[in-house]
C-alpha cells in the first residue's frame, strides 16, 4: 500500500468515526436546521418594488444653469417629454387608441355619474358619496340628486348675476357641489379656509372680490361682513336638517344689508319641480379659475393663489398616476378627506378619488380631529388623507402602548425590520395577528375594507409638524397601510414631491428636525434648486431654494422660499 492509499484509509476511518458519533442531539439539530431552511425558503417574498428603483428615484437633467442645480424630474416623466398635464379623457365614441383630452373639473363629475368605463368586472360601477354626521350616523347621497343640486345652485347663482363665488364651508358635499356648479356655470370659485376669525374672513372676501358667499350659519359673521364688505350681493346658507324650519331668508334687523339677497341651499333645491336640472350643461369655454387661500403660520396673512382649471387637473392626474396601477383607487375603496378641502392637496386627492369612482365620505369635524381614530370616526375608510398632527398623535399614543412591554417592543421592531429591510408588508401570521389585535387602532375596521393608504403632507411655511422616516415606518406597521408623505406649497396645486408608494425605507441621515425626505417630484412638476446664501449646487451635490415648474404650478414657476437638497437616492429633502 502506498502513501496515498494510507491517506484514503485514514480519511475513511475518520469520517466513519465522526458519523459514529451521531446521537439524538444530532438528529435534533439536523431536524431543526432543515425546518429553518424550509421555513425561510417557503416564506421568502420579493419586495414590492425593485430596490434599484428606490435607490435613484428622480432623474436629473444632464445640463444645469449656473447658480442652479440640474432640473429633477420623476422617473416616470423623463426629460424631453411634456410633464403630465391631464386626465386623458376619452370621449364616448372616440378611437380607443387616440390620445384623450386633458379634461377639466366637469369631466370629473361626469366620470362620477358615468361610473367605471374600462371593461372588467366593475364596469359601470359608481362610487358612493357619504356624509358622516356626529359619531356614527352616515348618510348616503343619491348621485342624480347631487347632479340636480349642482345644476340648480349653479343656475341660481348665475341668474342672480353672481360671478365670484366664495365657499366658506367645512368639509362637506356642498363644498364640492358648489365647486362643480362653478365649473359647469362658468363662475369663479373662491375656497376659503373654514373656521377663521371674523376679520380674516372679511379680508379674504375683500381680496378675492367675491360677490356671492355659500356658507353655513353659525360660523359666518354675517352682520360684520355686511357692515364691512358692501360688495356682497348674494348669500346662500347651507342649513342642516335640524334647523331647516327656521326662516333663514330674513335679514337681521339693523344691518342695512338690504342689498344682499339671502336664500338657503335647501330652498333653492326644493322649490323647482323635481324634474328640473337633471341634465348637466356643457358650455364650450373652459371653467374659470379657482382661488385658494393658503394658510401660513398662525398670525400671518394668507397667500391668495389663483389656480387655473388646468393646474388643478394636472395635480389630480399626478395623484392618480402616483398610485401604481395594481393598487389604484377603485369603486371598492372609500376615501375620507380628513384634512381641510381648502388645501389643494386634499382637494386634488378627493377629486382623484371621485375620478376613480371610489366612494368618498365627508366629515366636517375630521380636519380638526386630534388623531386618526377620531378623524375616521363613524366610518372605515380604505384611503385617508390626514394631517401630520393627527398622525403624529396616533403614533405617540400607540407607541407608548407598544413600548410598555418588552415583548410588544420586540414584536414591533421585528415588524419594522421586515418592512424596511425586505420592502414588503409582513404576511398574516402568529406574530402579525397578535400585533394587529393588540395595537392596531380598532376603528380601521371592517367595511368596506381595511385602511390601505394614508396621504399626508408637509405644508411649506405653515409650521406643520414634521414626520421622520421612522415615524412614517411606525405608522405603516401600526396601521398596516402604506403612507405617502408629500411636500405641498402655496403656489403648487396638489403636491410638489411625494414619497414613492412602495418606499418603506427608514433613512438614518435626516438633517432637519428629523424630517423624512419627500421622494421625487410628482409627474406634473419638475424641481430645481437655486443657490441661496451658503447653499449652493456643486458637482458634489444640489442644494438651494426649491423652485417648482410645471402644469400644476400657478404662474408656471414658483419659488417655495425654503431651502432643500437632493439626497443620494435623488429624493428631495428640506435642510
Amino acid at each position, binding site marked *: 500500500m502506498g502513501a496515498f492509499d494510507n491517506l484514503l484509509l485514514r480519511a475513511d476511518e475518520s469520517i466513519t468515526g465522526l458519523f459514529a458519533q*451521531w446521537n439524538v442531539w444530532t438528529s435534533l439539530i439536523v431536524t*431543526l436546521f432543515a425546518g429553518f431552511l424550509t421555513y425561510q425558503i417557503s416564506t421568502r417574498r420579493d419586495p414590492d418594488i425593485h430596490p434599484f428603483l*428606490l435607490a435613484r428615484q428622480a432623474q436629473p437633467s444632464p445640463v444645469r444653469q449656473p447658480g442652479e442645480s440640474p432640473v429633477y424630474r420623476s422617473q416616470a416623466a423623463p426629460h424631453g417629454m411634456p410633464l403630465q398635464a391631464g386626465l386623458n379623457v376619452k370621449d364616448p365614441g372616440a378611437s380607443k387608441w387616440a390620445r384623450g383630452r386633458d379634461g377639466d373639473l366637469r369631466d370629473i363629475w361626469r366620470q362620477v355619474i358615468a361610473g367605471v368605463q374600462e371593461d372588467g368586472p366593475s364596469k359601470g360601477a359608481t362610487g358612493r358619496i357619504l356624509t358622516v354626521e356626529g359619531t356614527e350616523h352616515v348618510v348616503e347621497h343619491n348621485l342624480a340628486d347631487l347632479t340636480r343640486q349642482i345644476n340648480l345652485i349653479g343656475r341660481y347663482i348665475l341668474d342672480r348675476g353672481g360671478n365670484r363665488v366664495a365657499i366658506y364651508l367645512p368639509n362637506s358635499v356642498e363644498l364640492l357641489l358648489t365647486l362643480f356648479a362653478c365649473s359647469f356655470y362658468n363662475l369663479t370659485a373662491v375656497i376659503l379656509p373654514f373656521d377663521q376669525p371674523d376679520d380674516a374672513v372679511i379680508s379674504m372676501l375683500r381680496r378675492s372680490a367675491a360677490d356671492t358667499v355659500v356658507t353655513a350659519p353659525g360660523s359666518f359673521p354675517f352682520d360684520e361682513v355686511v357692515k364691512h364688505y358692501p360688495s356682497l350681493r348674494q348669500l346662500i346658507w347651507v342649513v342642516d336638517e335640524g334647523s331647516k324650519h327656521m326662516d333663514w331668508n330674513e335679514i337681521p334687523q339693523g344691518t342695512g344689508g338690504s342689498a344682499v339677497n339671502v336664500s338657503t341651499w335647501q330652498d333653492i333645491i326644493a322649490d323647482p319641480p323635481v324634474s328640473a336640472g337633471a341634465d348637466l350643461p356643457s358650455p364650450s369655454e373652459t371653467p374659470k379659475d379657482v382661488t385658494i387661500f393658503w394658510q401660513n403660520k398662525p398670525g400671518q396673512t394668507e397667500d391668495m393663489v389663483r389656480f387655473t382649471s388646468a393646474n388643478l387637473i394636472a395635480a389630480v392626474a399626478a395623484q392618480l398616476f402616483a398610485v401604481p396601477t395594481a393598487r389604484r383607487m377603485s369603486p371598492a375603496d372609500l376615501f375620507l378627506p380628513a384634512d381641510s378641502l381648502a388645501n389643494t392637496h386634499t382637494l386634488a386627492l378627493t377629486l382623484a378619488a371621485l375620478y376613480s369612482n371610489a366612494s368618498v365620505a365627508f366629515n366636517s369635524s375630521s380636519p380638526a380631529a386630534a388623531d386618526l381614530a377620531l378623524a375616521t370616526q363613524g366610518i372605515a375608510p380604505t384611503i385617508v388623507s390626514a394631517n401630520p398632527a393627527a398622525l403624529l398623535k396616533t403614533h405617540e399614543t400607540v407607541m407608548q402602548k407598544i413600548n410598555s412591554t418588552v415583548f410588544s417592543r420586540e414584536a414591533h421592531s421585528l415588524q419594522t425590520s421586515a418592512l424596511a429591510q425586505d420592502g414588503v408588508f409582513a404576511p398574516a401570521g402568529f406574530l402579525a395577528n397578535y400585533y394587529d389585535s393588540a395595537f392596531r387602532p380598532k376603528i380601521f375596521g371592517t367595511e368596506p375594507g381595511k385602511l390601505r393608504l394614508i396621504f399626508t403632507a408637509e405644508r411649506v411655511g405653515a409650521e406643520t409638524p414634521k414626520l421622520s422616516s421612522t415615524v412614517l415606518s411606525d405608522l405603516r406597521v401600526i396601521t398596516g397601510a402604506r403612507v405617502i408623505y408629500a411636500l405641498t406649497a402655496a403656489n403648487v396645486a396638489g403636491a410638489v414631491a411625494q414619497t414613492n408608494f412602495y418606499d418603506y425605507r427608514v433613512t438614518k441621515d435626516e438633517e432637519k428636525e428629523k424630517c423624512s425626505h419627500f421622494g421625487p417630484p410628482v409627474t406634473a412638476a419638475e424641481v430645481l434648486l437655486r443657490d441661496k446664501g451658503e447653499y449652493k449646487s456643486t458637482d458634489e451635490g444640489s442644494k438651494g431654494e426649491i423652485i417648482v415648474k410645471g402644469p400644476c404650478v400657478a404662474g408656471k414657476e414658483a419659488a417655495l422660499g425654503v431651502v432643500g437638497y437632493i439626497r443620494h437616492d435623488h429624493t428631495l429633502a428640506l435642510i
Partner: protein
Amino acid sequence: MDYVQQRVAQEAAKPDGAGSAPSGLLTPLNIILLSVVLYTTFSYLKPKPAAALPKEAPAVVFRTFTPRTLLPYNGENNMPVYLAVRGRVFDVTRGRNFYGPGGPYANFAGRDASRGLACGSFDEDMLTKDLDGPLDTLSDLGKDELEAMAGWEERFLEKYLVVGKLVAAGDEGKEETQ
C-alpha cells in the same frame, strides 16, 4: 473491492458497544453541525445593506462661450469636443469619431460650424477667421443652405446636449444686463 471487503470486515470485527455513539451534546460532530447552523442562520437574518447605485456623472454647467474660449474644446489633450451652430454650443463628444481629431469633420471642433454645415463643406475657409470679431451672421446664405443647416440643427438637438451659447468676444454678460 478488496479494500471494501477489508473495511467491512474491520468494522464487523469491532466488539458490540465499542462503536456506540457518545450521548453528550458537545460531540465533535454536533459542534461542527451547530456551527454550520449558526452561520447559515446569521447570514439569513443579518440586515442587508440598502441598495445603492453608483453616483452619476455631475451635470455640465451651461456656460457662455466666445469663439476664443470655445477653441480649446476640440477633442485634443483629453478635452471634450464642442461645436457651435447658430449660437448654440453642442457637446458632440459622443461623436468623437466624426468631430474629434482625425475625423472628417475635425475642422469644426471648437469652432462655429454654422456656415460649414449649411454649405456642406468641411473646408477651413468656412470657419470664421477672426476669433475676436463679430459672429458669422449667415445673411448671405440661400434658402437651401439655411434649410440644410436647420436639418443639422434638428439632428444635433436630438442626439447631443446643448451645453452653452456662443457670443462674440466682448458680448459676454450683455444679455444678463439687458
